[in-house]
């Protein structure tokens, strides 16, 4: 008999009903954060898990967690996480950051954590724009995508999409790197596995682990939630899903 895993369900670690500033209709940050909550629950690490949020929409789910958590300056999540982890090496410290938070303004903190090989888990929500400030261009914005800061569509003069999961996989200190999505039940389950593996790497104290989750942003994409699911497929075409690195020790 095949017992199917629950496709979507509430997590007592993260519950949307506790979130103070509500998420927009169709925003997938809630689904992604539910997954984090479920994985923490399944791994039994809620007593030692610490969430570090960056600035932007990625910080809004913070109030829904029933674990220790902190919000830091825009982009500095890996720095705060490092300070916390160095003082409490037995804690499981993870960041939740947006694409701009991690790959643009947070490049300094990210590079520091990567170079030193901090034993952290970095989780990035990729919605291809700066959602909380009005949908401006992010490092992940697709070519041709129209935003308030690339009003005629992103062209080469504004650079090309930055692929976080592939880039991080190239670092010796990174032991796990994956990209998932939550637009279909299959992707949802795969992403849950990625998150679980990433946390396990930290539990095993091996190295830095990274999971990128593609998240829909209907409001800033000026779409209905249903239309935005179609757009997610375009994002996936640019940012392939899967595991880019999975090793058991730093070689």
């Amino acid at each position, binding site marked *: 008999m095949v017992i199917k895993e629950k496709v979507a369900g509430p997590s007592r670690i993260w519950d949307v009903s506790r979130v103070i500033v509500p998420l927009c209709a169709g925003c997938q940050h809630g689904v992604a954060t539910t997954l984090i909550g479920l994985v923490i629950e399944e791994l039994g690490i809620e007593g030692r898990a610490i969430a570090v949020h960056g600035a932007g929409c990625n910080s809004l789910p913070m109030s829904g967690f029933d674990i220790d958590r902190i919000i*830091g300056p825009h982009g500095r999540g890996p*720095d705060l996480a490092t*300070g916390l982890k160095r003082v409490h090496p037995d804690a*499981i410290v993870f960041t939740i950051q947006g694409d701009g938070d991690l790959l643009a303004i947070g490049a300094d903190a990210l590079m520091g954590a990567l170079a030193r090989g901090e034993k952290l888990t970095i989780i990035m929500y990729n919605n291809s724009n700066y959602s909380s400030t009005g949908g401006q261009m992010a490092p992940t914005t697709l070519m041709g995508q129209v935003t308030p800061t690339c009003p005629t569509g992103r062209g080469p003069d504004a650079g090309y999409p930055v692929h976080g999961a592939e880039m991080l996989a190239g670092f010796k200190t990174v032991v796990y790197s994956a990209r998932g999505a939550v637009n279909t039940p299959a992707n949802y389950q795969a992403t849950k596995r990625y998150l679980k593996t990433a946390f396990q790497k930290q539990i095993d104290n091996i190295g830095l682990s990274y999971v990128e989750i593609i998240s829909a942003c209907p409001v800033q994409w000026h779409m209905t939630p249903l239309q935005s699911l179609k757009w997610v497929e375009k994002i996936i075409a640019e940012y392939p899903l899967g595991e880019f690195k999975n090793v058991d020790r730093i070689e």
Partner: protein
Amino acid sequence: MAERVFTYGNEMVGWGAVNAGCIYFFGYPITPQNEVTAWFARELPKRGGVFVQSQSELGSINLVQGAAAAGARVMTSTSSPGWSLMQEGISFLALGELPTVIHVAQRGGPGTGTMRHAQMDYLSATRGGGHGGYKTIVLAPASAQEIHDLVQLAFYLADKYRNPVVVLSDGILGQMREPVKVEPLSFPPLPEKDWAIAGKAKHKDGKFREGLGGRGMVYPAEYIGALEGLDKKYRQMQDAEVRYEEYQVEDAELLLVAFGYVARVCQEVVNIARSEGLKIGLIRPITLWPFPYEVIKEKAANGARFLVVEDNLGQMIDDVRLGVEGRAETHFLGIFARHLTSDLGIIFPDRVLEETKRLLEKGR
């Protein structure tokens, strides 16, 4: 147990920190404070502590933020350009009410400026250099001994008020060797850091802890309440934490006001002047914020005149004028009084004495 050592002012940052129970230090190389980071890198592992060389001063202050949130006594050290980079983080430490100590060996600015001494970060330190109008206590040592002692006091005050504290030193104090009595100082007891983020299982009540930095963005309704709390705390600091030293002020007609290495110079000026029968004294603010306005006000009301001496273009003089409130003449001697026009120049006692005599002569 006290130990006598003869070493650099910069090394006293390390001795002061470990004597205050700080075993976490995160820093980035910058002159003229490199002896500080080297000391911690060498000494902390021996003491079961953690030294991390950060990727930048943005990194230093935010690693500090994480460790402070974790409940540890933690500090960083930098010089002026790095101090600029830390301002964002200090603003977040202020809203997050996270205690930490930041040591700054000031150098010449603006920009890259020079790698040598100056006192050009007074205003950014005392006015809350980052965004949002926060305040931090700023302690200004004038000797290696005082660096050692004030770093310990800084940790106590940081924990007492749950606020960052700045120890504002300079390139000369840091590079000068002096004998120091090294020992842990005693301070009143502090409450347990029950708020520290450590993982839910570590809290006695089994409930989660969270940083206070979400008051506003994540918890909009808590914003004004957070500001009221900070305001109250800043007033308490102003009422309780003003520190200064008076030297030969009783009958002084002219009062020098100086901090840091320049205060050492001015003390020598007072000694020479007194031996010549001139009635001059020195007021040395030890807390640059909160500033000792009251003593300035009192001396101004009693007829003293003032000469502010600082190794910059004029910064602390703003505070002296606020204390004087127009009651007395307030003169300034700054960086152009150095004995050389290169970055090697120092404000020496003879130049300050000359200015003192000129002002006394003029006043008669």
